[in-house]
């Protein structure tokens, strides 16, 4: 029966597969925004709209001070403090119950909170676990009343959240009468004169509006895309497995598996000659006119050797020939006419030397268009067109474990959003999270493009190019340390047209514990440290592998400059990140590294000469007392307690990718902790597996010790370990220079492991 229903032709199978994906995705998407019941059959739209309303309350004496020229500063200070007190009482349970009664809603469904707006130290205003737990509880309520006392004047802002605008307005309007009721009741109970109470004045009725427009569409779209991709992937995997199973089980399997592709015809005439026997059935099969599938297959197989890539038409062959001729002329980067490697080189030049995350268009747009997000679309578009056009130079996507690792991260992060979408909508954070997907897409795009566009024979050149960029970046950073002048920011400011706004780099500024803010092209010093540390393994591996003195000197110089530049940032991580590189390389190449020990002395001296005082500053910070007393350490340790409520309330999938961001939430100085909070244990595991996949994939080329491949593998493994180490030190994925570089290195490694060296030239014709 199943056999009978199964689509007969490949086209129909594909259409059936797409239809199945679309149907399942549609059902899931509908379920995400509606509640579906089977008995009785019913689909009801979920309540996803959130409305907000605001009102102001002025606090004054019975004899108003507003127009009294004899009012004193003391009067207003007293009133302002009283307003803060009243604001907090307004958010208390007794007043909340009166508000609920007056607004005609269930008192159990409303929560209230008063925000700290007074000028207190950050430590008091930063979210601690207890307050965060309350916030989580409040966000789950159907109705919310938020009170914000003004820190300067005696007034209070009242904000209400409800499913409808009318309800939100009713709640906001009920706050002042409820407060008056409460104060009157207290006065009566305590026997005080109600006339001596403060006067609460609401200048105008509350105003309300919908505050989460488009959430329904966002949730629907997210779920649809996620389920569609997931089902499509599952179907593809299932088909592959089934096919492999069927071929493996059949005695004639080997005979049926095409072992070798036919060479491309040299001329159009040859192509026509080769195609002729299969023309009629194939054409008929394509049009499905009076040809049984069996006949079509027979006709197709009648051709002695099929044309590569399913070429059937003369124009296709002509195009393939044109592509081949072009490919013959196009050499390897940098001596190539291929656009994609040059575009990639340009992109990496921007990543290493331009503070792109601090540069954006001056125009007001719904999304922040940073420089990388302006450049990358051109790269992606060219790649997509080249892929679609096919031919010899077309990018070829070949899956590796790194692809799967990165794909796993994408799936886990998207899953956290799909699962947490309704909760994020309730907390008004869905928009923020969805916007973060752009950044994730940008990272993944770069990896996929590198892994599919770079030739294996180009990897060494690109690795050297990366080292040159890292060295230039290091020289600029050292210059900034020595002369308090950030050449990256200044050059960007000078070279970019006026439509771009470039951020400021205060190179001579110091942080709270007196360290210079040397940041290179990054936004913060730690970003520069990470970038440089990821470039460091290339120089060390080059030094280990070079046999010529000149090369040794140059690589040694590069090591000294890059290491010195990391130290010039005066961060503790400037020692830890390079140390992780040395440990990684020592794990794989102990003897070679030991042989470099004498050179290390010279490099160390040079390093100290380049950045006088920096090394001492860094080492000094690692002393026991220093380490315990500085805020940079205590802030990090306090993060563990602060995120407990969020972690425990969404343990598996997190509260949603990109949803725990300042200024609404606390700054988490640890990527792993941020990942755990946002994407849960599943996402954290995916993130760790992604890093592990790079190191795991690198092991084979490292073991095989082919100089060219091993150099890439060691460098990529070093960069991956740096990413892991800095993930425990700061929120590295929020600073795009670092993930771009890490994924660039991973992409180069994927090229090396996915393309066997002997098939490089042949692979060029096998699209």
């Amino acid at each position, binding site marked *: 029966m199943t056999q009978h229903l199964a689509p007969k032709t490949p086209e129909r199978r594909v259409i059936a597969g797409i239809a199945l994906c679309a149907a399942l995705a549609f059902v899931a998407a509908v379920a995400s925004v509606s509640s579906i019941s089977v008995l009785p059959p019913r689909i009801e739209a979920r309540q996803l709209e959130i409305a907000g309303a605001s009102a102001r309350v002025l606090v004054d004496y019975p004899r108003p001070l507003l127009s009294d020229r004899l009012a004193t500063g003391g009067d207003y200070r007293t009133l302002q403090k009283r307003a803060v007190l009243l604001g907090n009482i307004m958010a208390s349970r007794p007043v909340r119950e009166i508000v609920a009664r007056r607004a005609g809603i269930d008192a159990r469904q409303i929560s209230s909170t008063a925000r700290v707006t007074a000028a207190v130290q950050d430590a008091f205003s930063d979210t601690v676990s207890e307050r965060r737990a309350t916030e989580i509880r409040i966000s789950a309520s159907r109705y919310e009343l938020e009170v914000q006392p003004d820190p300067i004047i005696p007034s209070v802002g009242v904000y209400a959240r409800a499913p409808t605008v009318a309800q939100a307005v009713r709640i906001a309007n009920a706050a002042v009468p409820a407060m008056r009721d409460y104060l009157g009741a207290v006065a009566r109970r305590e026997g005080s004169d109600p006339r001596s109470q403060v006067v609460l004045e609401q200048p105008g009725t509350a105003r309300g509006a919908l505050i989460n427009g488009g959430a329904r569409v966002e949730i629907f779209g997210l779920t649809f895309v996620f389920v569609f991709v997931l089902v499509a992937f599952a179907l593809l995997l299932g088909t592959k497995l089934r096919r492999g199973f069927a071929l493996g089980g059949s005695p004639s399997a080997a005979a049926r598996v095409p072992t070798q592709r036919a060479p491309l015809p040299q001329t159009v005439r040859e192509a026509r000659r080769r195609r002729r026997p299969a023309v009629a059935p194939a054409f008929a099969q394509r049009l499905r006119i009076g040809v049984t599938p069996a006949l079509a297959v027979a006709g197709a197989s009648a051709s002695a050797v099929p044309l590569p890539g399913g070429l059937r038409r003369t124009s296709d062959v002509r*195009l393939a020939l044109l592509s081949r001729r072009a490919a013959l002329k196009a050499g390897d980067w940098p001596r190539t006419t291929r656009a994609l490697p040059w575009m990639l080189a340009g992109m990496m030049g921007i990543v290493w030397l331009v503070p792109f995350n601090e540069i954006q268009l001056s125009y007001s747009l719904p999304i922040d268009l940073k420089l990388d997000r302006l450049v990358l679309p051109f790269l992606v578009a060219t790649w997509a067109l080249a892929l679609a056009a096919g031919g010899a130079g*077309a990018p070829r996507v070949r899956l590796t474990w790194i692809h799967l690792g990165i794909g796993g991260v994408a799936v886990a992060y998207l899953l956290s959003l799909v699962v947490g979408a309704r909760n994020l909508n309730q907390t008004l954070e869905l928009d923020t999270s969805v916007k973060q997907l752009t950044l994730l897409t940008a990272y993944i795009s770069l990896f996929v493009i590198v892994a599919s566009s770079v030739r294996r024979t180009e990897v060494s050149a690109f690795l050297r190019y990366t080292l040159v960029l890292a060295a230039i970046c290091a020289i600029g950073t050292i210059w900034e340390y020595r002369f308090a002048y950030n050449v990256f920011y200044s050059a960007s400011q000078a070279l970019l047209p006026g439509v771009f706004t470039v951020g400021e780099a205060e190179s001579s500024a110091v942080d709270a514990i007196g360290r210079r803010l040397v940041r290179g092209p990054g936004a913060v010093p730690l970003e520069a440290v990470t970038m440089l540390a990821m470039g460091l393994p290339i120089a060390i591996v080059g030094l280990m592998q070079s046999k010529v003195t000149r090369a040794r000197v140059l690589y040694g110089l590069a090591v000294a400059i890059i290491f010195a530049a990391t130290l010039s940032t005066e961060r503790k991580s400037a020692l830890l990140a390079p140390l992780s590189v040395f440990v990684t390389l020592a794990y794989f190449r102990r003897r070679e590294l030991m042989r470099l020990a004498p050179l290390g002395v010279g490099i160390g001296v040079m390093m100290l000469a380049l950045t006088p005082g920096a090394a001492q500053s860094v080492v000094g910070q690692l002393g026991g007392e220093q380490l315990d007393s500085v805020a940079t350490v205590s802030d990090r340790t306090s993060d563990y307690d602060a995120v407990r409520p969020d972690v425990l309330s969404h343990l598996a999938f997190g509260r949603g990718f990109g949803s725990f961001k300042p200024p609404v939430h606390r700054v988490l100085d640890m990527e792993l902790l941020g990942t755990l909070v946002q994407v849960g244990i599943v996402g954290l595991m995916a993130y760790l597996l992604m890093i592990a996949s790079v190191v795991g994939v690198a092991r084979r080329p490292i073991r095989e010790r082919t100089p060219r491949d091993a150099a890439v593998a060691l460098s990529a493994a070093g960069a991956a370990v740096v990413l892991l180490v800095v993930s425990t030190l700061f929120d590295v994925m929020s600073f795009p220079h670092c993930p771009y570089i890490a994924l660039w290195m991973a992409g180069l490694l994927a090229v090396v492991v996915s393309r066997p060296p002997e098939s490089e030239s042949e692979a060029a014709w096998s699209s």
Partner: protein
Amino acid sequence: MELLTIVGVISQRRFAVALGLPFAVLVGLLLAGMLPFGPGPATTPGRGLAETRVLLDHRTPIVADLGAISDTLGTQAALLAEVMGGDTTRDAIARGAGIRPADLLIRRPQVAQLFAPGLLSQRTTEAVADLPAASVIAITAASPIPVLTIDVNAPTRDIAQRIATAAREMLRTVMAERAPTRGRALVVRPLGAVRAVALPASTRSPLVAVAAALFAFVFWVCSVVVLHGVLRVWRQASAAAATA
């Protein structure tokens, strides 16, 4: 080199690419408003803007009386701006300007934030500020300086000027009404006349239509190339299945 292949595909599919030309021209003409249907040219209607500033002061100007207590004037100015956000004042200003109260929106000042506000207050403030109204008036205090600025955005220059004048009068009225005694009242002094300007109606530049047409054509061409790729893969899959 990839570009050569892409150009090759475009040349191979030249008929499909050529179809993009009328499509692009259509998009350009639509945006230029040269067709009887479609969105037409985006014309921004003319608006009137008015601005005036007032000083909250003692009867004896504080600039001439060093003995006067002036340190609360900034706070009082900020509170006055809050009071002006009320419905009663809005109705009075609308009446004074000769417009319907429903057509006037007074943008309320925000709570001074020393720390990050919550998303609820942030989103609500943004959404409420975008409520539609023909005329919008914003009264802001430059605390701690006792100066209030009245900004009006109205359909015409004349209406904007009338609203600003009415708002300035309303400030005086409010201060007079709330004074404990006439002698202790604060006064509102205009800092110059109401300045009004008419913004002419503007139509979208023809360059936008040209750019849109160009973009539409590029998009069409890219779509043709991508479709070519999809068909190619489809054919390959069919061929492979047929061979197998």
